[in-house]
């Protein structure tokens, strides 16, 4: 069972998952583009004789495509040591920013040239349609160039300090930072975190999800080719309970940046609390999509359909509850259901496929449980509701739409799958209250043609991200992150970059001699 899924349900912390204690994969990899086995990437350090391996499954065929090393606590220790060594040597942290800029731009170019290859890796290990991965990955080089550019242009400040004092605020990298990334957008989220951390001069130890680590491992290998020095970017694969825990509890780590479930977030923050280090956490969500009656209904339907079923509903900002004003509810629901029914399920590598698998068997079970519970609570099934294997194989689940009321479980809990709640709402005030009624506060979308309404509703939504007449658009320059149970801190933008720096305030006295002469009964002496 997926670690993430278990943790979201709150049943387990640091849970263990599928792990083999033998070195030989049970079956031959199906796709020849994969190596049979991938080792962790932390060059320059001693690799422990890891005997534990994790099997990577293709969710569309249920075949094992390769294995990866599960890093032991000793391996994690070695990776952090490698990071420390590189950081202390100054080979990256103290290098001229122009050098960091050049290397990151080179890395961006290399990524660009291998894009279709990476997209295929992503599709095969996650089951997500190749069309989605091609489109998503095409933008990833922008994250590297954006943060490389920030490294060149970022400045500190000189506050207007009282008196004859010169106060400089200067920034420096934190040290070795830990990054824990998920399986739903393996490379996107890894690069979102790696780019600002490296641009700011840190050393990084990334632990990708054990369900889809291959593209991140390959990216780290490529980074070495781009002349990121050894020890600066390390990847350790493994389970959260062992590898992730060891990494987060290492006292040498200066910051943890996590994307994952809310319960994982709590466990990670507890570990960070022990070491008193900052955390950026991008956790769960129950993104509301508010459809106001002044919008052209078809436009909102198309937008909501994308919001709900992209990545088979497995994103932290999946439009998983669509709150519709009653004036247009029937029209919206009819059109939305018709379109959801028509979505094409199939082979992820087929460019015509529109809806992918979910990540694994456990996820299928979870979707089914939510459907059953919603129906038992009185929800009305409008379409879907069952697994839909293709040729008897694959973790496919039908795009599912259920009409619910705001108090039902499906309207409040994160499914992380293609099971969408429709909520009929009598008034804008009710729409807003419903949207704000969960513990989550990550994304929200609203559809309206009124600019005043858009602005005022946006201001009142409990959400770190609000889209108006669109969904899930992002940009390396635009801060991304939630509040409440959805996390803290920001990815992207200057906020993310400064999150990987520490601020030093230096106060230089250049003319207030009396201020220091306190004990000479100097009446004018300054204190403060």
């Amino acid at each position, binding site marked *: 069972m997926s670690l993430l899924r278990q943790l979201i349900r709150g049943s387990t912390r640091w849970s263990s998952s599928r792990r083999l204690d033998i070195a030989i994969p049970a079956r031959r990899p199906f796709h020849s583009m994969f190596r049979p086995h991938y080792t962790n990437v932390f060059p320059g350090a001693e690799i422990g004789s890891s005997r534990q391996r994790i099997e990577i499954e293709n969710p569309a065929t249920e075949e094992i495509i390769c294995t990866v090393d599960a890093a032991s606590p000793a391996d994690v220790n070695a990776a952090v040591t490698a990071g420390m060594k590189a950081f202390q040597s100054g080979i990256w942290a103290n290098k001229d920013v122009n050098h960091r800029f050049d290397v990151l731009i080179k890395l961006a170019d290399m990524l660009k040239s291998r894009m279709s290859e990476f997209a295929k890796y992503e599709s095969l290990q996650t089951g997500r349609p190749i069309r989605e991965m091609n489109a998503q990955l095409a933008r990833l080089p922008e994250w590297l160039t954006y943060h490389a550019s920030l490294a060149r242009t970022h400045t500190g400040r*000189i506050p207007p300090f*009282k*008196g004859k004092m010169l106060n400089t605020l200067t920034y420096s990298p934190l040290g070795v930072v830990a990054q824990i990334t998920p399986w739903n957008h393996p490379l996107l989220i890894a690069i979102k975190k790696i780019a600002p951390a490296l641009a700011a001069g840190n050393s990084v130890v990334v632990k990708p999800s054990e369900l889809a680590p291959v593209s991140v491992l390959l990216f780290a290998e490529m980074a070495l080719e781009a002349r990121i020095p050894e020890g600066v970017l390390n990847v350790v694969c493994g389970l959260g309970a062992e590898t992730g825990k060891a990494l987060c509890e290492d006292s040498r780590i200066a910051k943890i940046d996590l994307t994952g479930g809310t319960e994982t977030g709590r466990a990670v923050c507890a570990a960070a609390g022990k070491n008193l280090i900052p955390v950026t956490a991008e956790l769960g969500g129950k993104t509301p999509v508010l459809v106001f009656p002044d919008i052209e209904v078809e436009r909102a339907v198309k937008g909501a359909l994308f919001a709900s079923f992209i990545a088979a509903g497995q994103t932290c900002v999946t439009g998983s509850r669509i709150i519709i004003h009653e004036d247009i509810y029937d029209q919206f629901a009819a059109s939305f259901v018709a379109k959801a029914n028509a979505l094409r399920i199939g082979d992820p590598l087929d460019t015509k496929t529109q809806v992918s698998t979910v990540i694994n068997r456990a996820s299928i079970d979870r979707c089914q449980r939510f459907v059953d519970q919603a129906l038992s609570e009185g929800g009305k099934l409008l379409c879907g509701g069952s697994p839909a294997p293709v040729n008897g194989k694959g973790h496919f689940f039908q795009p599912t739409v259920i009409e619910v009321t705001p108090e039902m479980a499906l309207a409040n809990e994160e499914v992380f799958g293609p099971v969408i709640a429709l909520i009929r709402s009598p008034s804008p*005030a009710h729409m807003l209250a419903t949207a704000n009624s969960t513990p989550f506060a990550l994304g929200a979308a609203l559809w309206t043609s009124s600019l*005043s309404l858009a*602005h005022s509703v946006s201001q009142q939504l409990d959400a770190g991200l609000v889209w108006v*007449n669109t969904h899930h658009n992002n940009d390396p320059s635009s801060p991304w992150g939630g509040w409440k149970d959805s996390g803290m801190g920001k990815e992207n933008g200057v906020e993310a970059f400064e999150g990987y720096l520490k601020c030093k305030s230096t106060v230089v006295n250049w003319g207030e001699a009396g201020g220091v002469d306190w004990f000479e009964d100097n009446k004018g002496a300054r204190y403060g």
Partner: protein
Amino acid sequence: MALPFDASRGWVGWYAWAWYVDQLRLRAYPASTRRIGLARLHASAAPPPLPACTHPLRFSTSTLVAIDRPPRLPNTGGLIHPRLEQFSSYKLQAISSNHQDSMPPSADTSSASNILAAPKRIETRLYINGEFRDAVSGKTFTLVNPATDEPVAQIAEADKEDVDAAVDAAEAAYPAWRDMDGHARAACLRKLAALIRENVDAFAYLEAVSMGRPVYNYDNDCEFAAASIEYMAGAIHHLHGETSLQSDGYLNLTLRQPFGVCAAIIPWNVPMIMFAWKLGPCLAAGNTLVLKSSEKAPLTSIKMAELIHQAGFPPGVINIIGGFGPTAGAAMAKHMKVRKIAFTGSARTGKLIQEMASQSNLKNVTLELGGKSPCVVFDDADIDAAVAGSQFSIQWNSGQICIANSRIYVHEKIAEEFTQKFVKSFGSVKIGNPLDKDTRHGPQADKLQLANIKRFLEKGKAEGGELLLGGAQVTMDGTEASGDEAKGCFVHPTVFSNVPESATIVKEEIFGPVLAINTFTSEDEVLARCNDTEYGLYAAVYTKSLDRAIKFAKGMEAGTVGVNCTSPSGLFVDMPFGGFKQSGVGRECGMDSLHHWSEVKTVAIKLS
């Protein structure tokens, strides 16, 4: 209440301007004062019935959104910091007995209680180095009330020698002011803001008899001026330099430092606001100032000098002079010790000032110049809101506002309804004595302005526009004036429609209550017409379409764009204001303004 959609930004901005504009509108047309204007075509035609509300939103956003009106902050009273004691030798000097009192104009001695009373005493001299004094030459000029053509006062007329004296005083005061603790400088500014609020009636009277501004809403000008100065008092603590560790072996810094002695030349149309926009950032950044008021409206600036005196600014930090552009103004622009000059006025004068600045010492120049601001009204707009907003924009201050929307482009589908309502509303404004609290429409500033506008009116009639309203000089009671000997400088609100785009009244700034209403059908075409001008100060669009609103906000070539509001909405103390193209250089208000009033120094510290 209709709010501009960006009103939630900063309480100061919200309070000082959104409230301002709403108040102005509310008070502009009390039903009891409506009268029939010179509407020739539509005044007697019954307006079409109001369309049923077609807005698909059946709910009111106000039920959903409770925008808290921020409380007005308590006045701090402007405590003077102990550090100011270094100026303790400086005492508030009693205004000497030989000051030049002026008699209130005889026309205003009416017994009606609606007439604002004159202040007991009107100061008319220059304020240099902390004292009021006559011009070196002893010259004065006569200020004439444009409502009555009667003389108001003899104003001391500064020339080059006075400018020199003022600059010397500012130069002497500069080091101590520059080095004074920011908290102490802020306290002076806050005290000045408080004093402005206490003297609203005096300011209103002085402006009314100088350039004819109706007194009914002058408290709003004073409030905006005070809020602008208070904002800058706060901004003192947020003027940062930068640090960079990007270059190996160096600690690099930037420091934001004052220019030194600065000059400002303000216009006559909204002197209080212009005064505050120059004085606030200039002093907050640590400069000292020589400010010249306009010869058409010198009295409020001299009143400000009295308050500056009371507020405890050290002598020489602010010097106020009255006089004319070609003499005193030119002396400031050419002065070798003045390091920066800020000017608000016409594009023609702005260019002269830039020329003089470059020919003398290449002083830094910021300019806020004219406009020919378009207002686009789409067929999905709230027509009544658009009529009220755009009508007030061109009517307020008798159209003597650089951001006034003087070109309206209305969608063909609603053109007739819009135009009828506009003409009815614009034509019913109450013309009268500016000192009368019921008056909503005063005279133009002086005979020169009047003659200028009359020339435009003739051109408008000759070049093919259809005259729907006004089009002529009127008397104080609103009846058509005959002959050039008519008293006062009143122009009736004037509307032309279907004016060729090449016509003078569509191309050039009129600075009067005169506008052109043209129609359009295509979105892209009207955007191109809006931008087909050398000006770029303000532009407005009324539409309910969110997509179109943002497209126009980005597409209009103007320093400020109003969406579902038009000027004077959209000006806030914390948001930069200024022009694209020939409407100006630089920005006023907000932190941008403070950057324009300070130099940047890079300090490279080599670490050995």
